[in-house]
Each structure stands twice: as structure tokens, then as C-alpha cells.
């Protein structure tokens, strides 16, 4: 105990030694817990944006950006609240990228960020409940709400001539919310949903779920899950048992591991990711590869954009005070002005410093609507020859 205390004191002293003029950005995502495998790529995405800005030396006259990682656990609202409280009150961060899951995000937003006037930009919380939250203009997200994706997916499926599908979703607010909005939209347009079955992430075995889905039948299987999680388990089971041959992949399922682990087995399947036309995505993936992580990792690009938005808004507002720069976020994300893609942050900072407007596109073609959430322009993808290929943009 005593040694631990000494250690912590030493750490605190060390932390205090950082340059007071530095900009600190918190990253509050679930490094432990059920989505722990997604967190490292997301954090690295956000940190890449910070490094880019630091290296450029152009943020508010050369401020360095320091990343403060915190574990939100994704599922434990109390732990997430404690983490964010610590970030705001003791680390004195100037903005937060996070949280990861919707429930935890709502908790830290309501309990800490809003009362303290802190800006939070979530790269991955997609619950429609966040649309209506009274956030005092402090909360944004670079991932679109589930409601929009449900409609996009419906159109896509019907255009493929598929009338009846089975749906499985990861048993959390993302999966359930997406499945709900999809099923509603799909039924409204005349489609049939044979079964809506949940699957839990990180569970040992999915034979039962696959069995139930197969028995219910349908022309295709919609997997509203995560490609690094239970979604992969379901997909593997459905492929191996020959239960389904066509799959529909929402954003959580479209990622590097889909190509890597399934490849040609899912030829002919299709899906969509929140993204739009442009060079941003490719540039981001290439930069990520150079930095040693997977830019196609789920929500890695959104994390990059979340961090970049905060920093660019600071530059535009000429202030690191969240209460001031929060008003610039929408302006930067939605243009008008020169388009800034991933990797162009230095240029963006320069333009802003010169008083010129920019339209931040970033890695995921950021466009914020309504109360500050991604507009929901989607890239329809199809799997051809084991590769994810872009079909068109919606």
C-alpha cells in the first residue's frame, strides 16, 4: 500500500511536469470489457490525429497535443463516469474523444461533461437516444444514428431482390437499436423478417443462435454485430453449417477482419458503412498502416475524425476552452470551404489560422446534421473475390 502510494505520488508529480500550454485530449473508451479488442485501434486513430497536429506545430501557435487515455469499460457507467471526471477535473483535458458505447456515453455526458461544460465527440455511440439528449451543444458524434442506417439497409436489400431476411444483432444498445430501426423500415416497405435473434458478444458458442436462425430461414442473414466479436462467430457458424449464403453487413461488420477471416466465403454478400466518396478513407488507411495499426478497424477512422474535429475547432475559435470552441465544430464539419481529408490537418490548421473556412471531410467524410451527429451518408459495399468493394454511395 505504502509503495503504491509513493508510486502514485511520483506519477502525479511527473504528470504535473507537462507543459502548461499543451493541449490535452482525453480518450475515454473501453480498453477493458466486452469491446476491449476494438479500443486499441480507435485510440491509435485518435492519437494519430493528435500527433499530426503536434508535428505540424501550427495549432494555436505551436501547442503540442497530449493524449490522455482512460478506460470507460464500455459497460460500467460508474467506472466511465469516474474516468471522465478524472480527465476533466484532474487531468484538465480540453476535449474528450469518447465514449465508446451509448449507455456509458450518456452517463458520462449527463453526469460529468455537461455539468462541467466539456465537449465530447463520440466516434462510435450510435443510439438514437443520443439524438434527443439535452447536451447544451457539447456533444457530437462522428458515427451516424442507427435510425438512418436501418433505412439505407432496407433499400439496399430490396434492390437486391431479397424479400425475406433473418436478423441477428449483438445484444447491446447499438445492435438492438439498429435491428429495431431496420426491422421497422424493412417491414414498412413490404419485407418479411423471419426471426430477430440476439447474440451476446464474447460468448463461447453460437451454435444455438445459428440453429435458430437457420430454422427460421430467409433469403439472407442480416448481422447487426461486430466483425471482431460475436458477429464473426455467427457468420462463421452460418457459413460452416451452410445455413445462409448471402449476408448483409452493417457498419460494425465491415472491417479488415471480414476480408482477412472470411474473404471469398462471403462473396456476393453486401452491406454499408457510414462513409462517403473520396480520398479521405484511403489516405487514412495508408497512414494508419504506416503508423502500425489497422485503419480499417471498426471506428478507427471515426476516432481520428473526432480528435481532428476538436483540434480544428480550437484553431477556428482560437481557444482551447470547450465552451468557446464547441460552436465551431458544426461549422468546420459542414463547410463551406476547402475540403480537408485525413492527413491534411496541417493544411486545415493553416487555413483556419488565416481566417479561411474549411470543410472537414477527414477519414469518414464527416458531415454533421441535426444536433451534431454524422449525417448518414453511406457507402454501399459488396464482397467480390474476397475483397470489400465499393458499389455506390447513398
Amino acid at each position, binding site marked *: 500500500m505504502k509503495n*503504491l502510494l509513493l508510486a502514485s505520488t511520483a506519477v502525479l508529480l511527473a504528470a504535473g511536469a507537462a507543459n502548461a500550454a499543451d493541449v490535452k485530449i482525453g480518450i475515454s473508451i473501453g480498453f477493458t470489457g466486452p469491446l476491449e479488442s476494438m479500443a486499441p485501434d480507435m485510440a491509435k486513430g485518435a492519437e494519430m490525429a493528435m500527433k499530426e497536429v503536434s508535428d505540424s506545430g501550427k495549432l494555436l501557435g505551436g501547442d503540442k497535443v497530449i493524449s490522455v487515455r*482512460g478506460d470507460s469499460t464500455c459497460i460500467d457507467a460508474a467506472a466511465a463516469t469516474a474516468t471522465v471526471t478524472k480527465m476533466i*477535473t484532474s487531468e484538465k483535458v480540453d476535449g474528450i474523444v469518447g465514449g465508446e458505447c451509448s449507455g456509458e456515453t450518456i452517463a458520462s455526458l*449527463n453526469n460529468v461533461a455537461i*455539468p462541467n461544460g466539456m465537449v465530447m465527440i463520440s466516434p462510435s455511440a450510435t443510439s438514437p437516444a443520443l439524438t434527443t439528449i439535452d447536451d447544451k451543444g457539447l456533444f457530437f458524434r462522428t458515427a451516424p444514428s442507427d435510425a438512418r442506417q436501418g433505412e439505407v439497409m432496407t433499400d439496399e436489400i430490396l434492390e437486391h431482390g431479397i424479400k425475406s431476411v433473418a436478423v441477428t444483432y449483438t445484444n447491446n444498445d447499438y445492435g438492438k437499436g439498429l435491428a429495431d430501426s431496420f426491422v421497422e423500415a424493412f417491414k414498412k416497405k413490404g419485407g418479411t423478417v423471419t426471426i430477430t435473434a440476439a447474440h451476446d458478444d464474447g460468448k463461447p458458442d453460437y451454435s444455438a443462435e445459428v440453429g435458430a436462425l437457420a430454422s427460421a430461414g430467409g433469403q439472407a442473414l442480416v448481422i447487426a454485430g461486430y466483425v471482431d466479436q460475436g458477429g464473426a462467430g455467427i457468420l462463421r457458424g452460418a457459413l460452416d453449417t451452410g445455413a445462409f449464403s448471402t449476408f448483409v453487413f452493417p457498419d460494425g461488420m465491415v472491417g479488415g477482419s471480414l476480408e482477412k477471416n472470411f474473404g471469398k466465403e462471403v462473396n456476393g454478400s453486401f452491406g454499408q458503412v457510414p462513409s462517403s466518396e473520396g480520398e479521405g478513407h484511403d489516405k487514412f488507411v495508408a497512414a494508419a498502416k504506416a503508423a502500425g495499426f489497422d485503419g480499417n478497424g471498426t471506428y478507427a477512422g471515426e476516432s481520428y475524425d473526432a480528435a481532428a474535429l476538436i483540434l480544428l475547432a480550437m484553431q477556428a475559435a482560437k481557444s482551447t476552452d470547450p465552451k468557446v470552441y464547441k460552436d465551431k465544430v458544426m461549422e468546420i464539419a459542414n463547410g463551406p470551404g476547402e475540403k480537408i481529408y485525413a492527413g491534411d490537418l496541417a493544411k486545415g490548421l493553416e487555413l483556419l489560422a488565416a481566417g479561411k473556412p474549411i470543410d472537414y471531410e477527414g477519414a469518414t467524410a464527416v458531415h454533421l446534421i441535426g444536433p451534431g451527429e454524422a449525417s448518414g451518408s453511406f457507402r454501399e459495399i459488396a464482397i467480390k473475390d474476397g475483397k470489400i468493394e465499393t458499389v455506390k454511395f447513398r
Partner: protein
Amino acid sequence: MSTRQPDAAKGGKFRAPLLFAVMAALIVMEGLTTGWDSALVILNMGIISAIMALGLNMQWGYAGLFNSGVVGFTALGGLAPVLISMPPTGGAMSQGGWQILGALLIAVLALVVATKLNHRLHGAARAAGVVAALVIGFVLFRAVFDPAVARVQAINPASQGYLGGLGLPVLLAWPVGAVLAAAAAWAIGKTSLGLRSDYLAIATLGIGEIIVAVLKNEEWLDRGVLNVTGIPRPWPVPYEVDLQADPGFVARMQGWGIDPVTGSTLTVKLIYMGLFGIVLALLLWGAQLALKSPWGRMMRAIRDNETAAAAMGKNVTRRHLQIFMLGAAVMGLAGAMMITLDGQMTPASYNPLRYTFLILVMVVVGGSGNNWGSVLGAVLVWFLWIKAEAWGPEIMNLAISHMSEGPLRQHLFDAAPQMRVIVMGLLLLLVLRFSPRGLLPEK
């Protein structure tokens, strides 16, 4: 158990005040170094953990019942604020609410009939009768239940889709949470308290999981994984934004030289602390009186030796049920308080590592059988659990600072958050080995 150990209570009567002073000093140090907001967040959750630990201490410390389903009781308690204080969903009752309640009644009736048949009939007729009652009950239940649930869930699914609550003050939900948990404990106790130690531990582990599974999947009840957000605050607790908008408050804070924003967050947390503190004090008062009374003596006797206690005329089964329900009620109360503090119910967040095993560590570290020990252990362990999250990476940084950049270093850095579970494991093992009666041994 550890009762044959030499008396660990060295330091005599100053031991407890001293350790509590250390605890206070840690919180104060946290306040001075990291910030008072953070210190109060830890303390408030620490008090709630202390109440959970008190509940578990009643079961494990007084009576020797190994309950590894704490998570289930806290989750059930957490349901109460939803049922009590959320506004009712318009039309939900007429759409299917009554029908759902009717279906539940059918389920209960089927169980009662099956139990009665089990007592009345014999041999093959018994098996056939019980199975028939259950199957017919189940089919009827599903026939009535499923369509009603579908209709309720169809009501504005993005933000409602459940029955909603009664719209009453949230403070009422605290005792209700206790009652809910106690009711569940009654049903569980009736079926599994006769089991021997390890079997009870495993059965409760499973039951805890079942309760959480129900809360996660019954959307008509609590929106399941979609979570219920915006649970109103209890009576004296204001909202920060209201305080910040109140010129009187802002002036007062500025008069004291405190930033109004910080002042508002601190005020809210302090009021919560007061509320929780009152509950904890009441519980401690009750638990101490009970433990020191002949009731406590009888409980300890039952824990020490069930056979002998039965031979001395004590109804062990009934007493076990009593203490099991009492402990569960306290856990349910803590669960309701926690959901009130969080302002939302997220059923997916209930995992056994955090809500069962961590509470167990608190009780053991504090000193099982000692109420003050549970409180001390809870706050200390909670403090450590939160701080280990920060310390883990820092210690790991120190350890790997000599290493050159590379995949191994990156790997170790990424693994650093796992240090907190290792710290907890070590703590539990060290206490069990070297101070099995905990920091504050039972008197």
C-alpha cells in the same frame, strides 16, 4: 474458518479509528492532488459499495452463506428506480401492459399448481401431473405474453417501447429496490439454501446471471439493452445546469472564490454524499445493534456450527432464509441508490467480476463478520480499483521505460489496464493468507 487464527486485532481499540483515518486521508489526498470532484465521485460510489458489502457481510460474515450472485440482487434493486420514478409510457398499459401482468399471473398459477401436485400426487402420476401443469402453463403464458410484449415494444421504440414507471419520487424506489431483491432472495432461498457450501455458491452464481439475463432481454420491463436514461434525481439533489443558471448560487460561489461550474458539480456530489451517508449510517446502526444482540449471537453460532445450533433448538433453515433475504435487501437498496446516482439503468453493465467478486474482496479485506470492516474494506478497495486503473499503466510505464520502442513494448503498454485485476487478485490472496480475519477482525 479463520476463527482458530491467533487474534489479528493488534493495535487494540485504536486500530479501527486509525484505519478509518487512513481512509479519510486517502480521500483527502485524492481531493488535493486529483481534484475534489474526483475524490467525491470515488467516495460516493465507495459508500454505495460499502452498502453492498454490508449486505454481503450479513450473508457471508454473520451466517457463512457463500452468495456469488450479488450482481443479480443489485441489478434487481436497480430496476426499482425505473419502475417507480420514470413517467409511464402513454397507452402502454392499455396496449398490452395488463395482458403482460395477466400472463405473469398465469405463470405464477402454473408454478403453484405444479407445486401442489408435487405434494399431493405420487409416483408416475406425480411426474405426469407436474410436467403437464408446467407445459400447459408455459404454452398459455407464451400465448398471452408474446403478442402483448410485441405491442408494448412497438410504442415509439427509439425512446420508449416499455411500460414505463409510475412517475413517483425516486427516493421511494430505494426501499422498493430492497423489497424486490428480498422477494427474489425468498424464492431463491426456498429452493437453494439447503445446498451445501460449494453448491450454493455455484447455484447463486447461476441465478445472478439469470436475473441479469432477464433484465437484459425483457424490453417491456426496462428497455433491456437499450437502457433507460434520464431517471430523475432524488428530492434534495439539484441539477448542475440549474445551479449554474441561478445568479444567487453563482454569486455565492464567486464570493467564496470558487468557480461556479466546479461549485455546482461539488454541491451536487456533496448532497448525494449526505444522502448516501445517512442511509449508510442508519444501516450501520441497525446492523451493529443486531449483531451485538442475541440475534447476532445466534447467527454467529449457526455460522460456526449448524448441526449444534439445530440441536440447541435454533431453526437453522428459517434463520438462513431470514439473513439471506436481509442481505439481499441491503444489496437491492444499494443497487437502487447506484442507479439513482448514475441517472440511468444499463442492464448490460452488470458483470460478475465487478459486482460479485469485487464486493467479495471488499468484505474479506475489511474483515468478514465486522460491519465497520465491510465499510472500510469497501471504500479502500473501491479506491484502489479506481486508482489501479491509473496506476497500472504508470507502473507499467516505469517497468518498460528502459525498453526500446517495439512491438513488445507496445504490447505491454496496451496490456497495462489489466493490472487492476492482478492487483485485486493479489490483494485478496495476501489478505486471505496473512490476515484472514481482515483489516478489522470480528470481535
